[in-house]
C-alpha cells in the first residue's frame, strides 16, 4: 500500500483507505472519492503542491497533506 501523494503522474491508483478527519472524508466523498474508486494522477506540482486527479469525467485538486492520508494501491 502506498499513499496517493507518492503516486507518479500518469499512474492509476485505487483508494483503499482514508485516514483523515470526518470533514475531509465527507468532502472527498461528496466529490466522489471513497474506498474502491480508481483515480488517475494527472498532474503533480513541485514543492508539495496539490495533486490533480481525474476520474468520472472531472478533475479534482487535492492538497499534498491530504493526499498523504489517502492510502491505496497502484493499478
Amino acid at each position, binding site marked *: 500500500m502506498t499513499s496517493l501523494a507518492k503516486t507518479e503522474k500518469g499512474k492509476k491508483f485505487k483508494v483503499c483507505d482514508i485516514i483523515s478527519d470526518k470533514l475531509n472524508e465527507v468532502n472527498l466523498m461528496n466529490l466522489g472519492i471513497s474506498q474502491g474508486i480508481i483515480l488517475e494522477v494527472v498532474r503533480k506540482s513541485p514543492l508539495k503542491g*496539490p495533486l490533480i486527479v481525474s476520474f468520472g469525467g472531472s*478533475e*479534482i485538486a487535492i*492538497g499534498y497533506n491530504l493526499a498523504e492520508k489517502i492510502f491505496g494501491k497502484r493499478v
Partner: protein
Amino acid sequence: MIKVLLIGQPNSGKSTIFNSVIGYKSISSNIAGVTVEFTTGKTVIDYRTFELVDLPGTYSLISSDEAEALAVNYLLEEKEDFLILNVIDSSVLTRSLELTIQLLELQKPMVVALNMIDDAERKGIEINADKLSEILGVPVIKTIASKGIGVSELFDKISIHPRFITKQNPFYYSEGAENMISDLKAAFMDKFDGLKISKRFIAIQFIENNLIIHEKCKKLFLKEEFENIIEMVQRYETECGKKLNIFFHKERHLGAFQIFEEVAKVGQKRKKDFLVKLDDIFMHSFWGYLSLASIMFIMFQAIFSFGGFAEPLFLENFGKISDLLANYFGQDSLLHSITHGAIVGFGGGIAIVIPYLLPFFLILAFMEDTGYLARIAYLLDSIMHKIGLHGLSVVPLILGYGCTVPAIISTRILKSRKDKFITAALSTLIPCTARMTTIFALVGFFISIKAAIMIYVINLIIVAVSGKILSKIFNEVSPGFILEMPKYHLPSIKVLLNKTWYRLKEFVVIAWPLLIIGSIILELINYFNLTSGINSFLSPFTEGILGLPAIVGITLIFGIMRKELTIILLFAAIGTNDVLKVMTVSQIFSYTIFITFYVPCLATFAALVKEIKLSNALLVSFFSFVIAVILAVFFRFIGVFF
C-alpha cells in the same frame, strides 16, 4: 405562480440558467461554495409567473459546509409547494446522479436539466434522455444553458409538470439498508406527519448523520426516545461493519453508475480539446507561475489605467457641483459644510473608488467564470499553506490591493471559520489603493521609490508572519485542500456584467453611506474648529509614542473615515506641500508605515462586521493597530541610524 428550487452540484451551470431567465439578481460561480447566499427572482414566461430560488451549489445533501447546509435547511423549512429543478453537468453524469438520487427521496415534483450536453458530446458521451426520464420517473430535458439552448423547453415542462402528480421512482437500496430505513420510519411514529418532506428522506438523512436533521429530531422527540433511536442506528452500524454514511454513499454511487451504464454510450472522444491543453500551460510547474505573474501584471495595469483615466473625469465634475453650492450657500455657512461634506463623500465614492473597483470586479468575474480562478488557488495553495491559509485565500488578498471592502466580502468563498477570520484579518493589512496613494506621495516622493517599495515588502512579510501566528493561535486544523478544477468555459457577457453589477452594488450599499457620513463629520470638525483640540488630546500618543509632530493627530482621525484623504489632509494640516519642512525623513517613514497598518477604514469595518461579526471585527482592528504601533515605534528608533 410556480416556485422552482434550483439545485445542482457546483459548476453545473445552475446559476447560468437562473441568470438567463431572471437577469440581474444572481451570482454564478465556478468555485464550489462561492454563492453562499441564495438568490430569488420572479419572472413571467408565456403568461406564467415563476419564482426561482437559486440555492448554493452542493455536491450532496449531507451538508459539509455553510453553503450546503443552507440548501438543506431551505428544503426543510419551505412551507409553500415547490418544484425541484435539478441541474446536471452531463459530462460528469455518474457523480451528478448521486445528488439526483438523494433529491428523488424528497418525493417532490422534479425536473432534470441535462446541462452542458456539448461538453458531454465532446467527450464522446451520448445520453438517452428518454431512457433516463423513464428510470428516474421525472422529465429530463437536454440543455446548453450558456448558449440558451433548451431553456424554454425546460420551462415549458416545468409549467406543465406540477399538474401531473407523477411519482418519482424512489431509489431502492439493498435489503439490509431498506430494513434499517423501515425500522427508523416506524420509530419516527407520527412526529413528522406535519412536515412536507417524506419520512423516507428524513430517515435516510438521519442514518447518514445529517446534523441538521439530527437537530430537528432532537427538538421533536423526548430525550429517551431520541437516545433510543441513536442507539438503534449505532447497532446497525456495528452490524454493518462500516460507517453508515459511507455505506449508503457507496450504494448510491453504485446505483448512479448502473443508471449511467443504462442510459449513456461512450464513443470516440472528439479530437483533444484545445481548452484542455491550456492547463498544460496554466498549471505547469514553471509556465503556470510565469503566466500567473503576467496575468496579474496585465490585470493591475488594466485596473490602474482605467482608474487613472476615469478618476479625474469624475473629480472634475464633482468639484464643479461643490463650487456651485458654495456660491449658493455661502462659503462659510454650516449648511455649506454639511452639503460639501456630503458631496465630497458621495463624489469620493464614485470618483475615487469605483474607477478601480469596476475593472477589478469585471476581471475577477471573468477569471471565476472561465475557471481560471480555481487554477490560481491550485498554484498558490502550497504558499498559502505555509502561511497557514487555504489556496482560495489568495482571492481576498489580491482584492485587498484594490479595495479592502470587496476583499472582506469575498472571504465568503472560504469554508472554515478559521480561514475566513484569518484571511479577513490579513486582507485588512494589505494596502489598498487609498493607502497606495499615500505611500507613493509621501515616502515615494520625499524619500525614494525604493523606500516605498520596501514598505510593500515589509507589508508582505508582516502578512505572512501574522498569518502564521494567527493559525497557530487558532489551532483548528484547516480542512484539506480539495477543489474541483472546472472545464474552461467562455463566459457569457451577460452573466459577467450581472455579477460585476451585483458585487458593485454590495460595496456601494455598505461603503457609500459611510463615506458620506465620514466626510460630513470631517467638515463639521473643521467648521467648529475642533482640530487643535483633537490634536492636543492625541499628542501624548502622536508625539510621545510615535515621535511625530502633534499636527498629524487630526489626519489619523480623518484616515479612519477616508484613507485616501490622508495625504491631502496632511498638506492642509501642515500648511504646505513640502512635508520635509515639518517632518524628518524618519518621521515620514514611521508615519506612512503607521497609516498603512493602523485600523480599517469605516467602510471596511462595516464589511468586517457583516462577514465575521462585531467582536471579531474589533479584534482585527485591535490587532492591526498594535502591529502599526510596534512598527512605527521600531522605525522611530531605527531612524536614528539613517
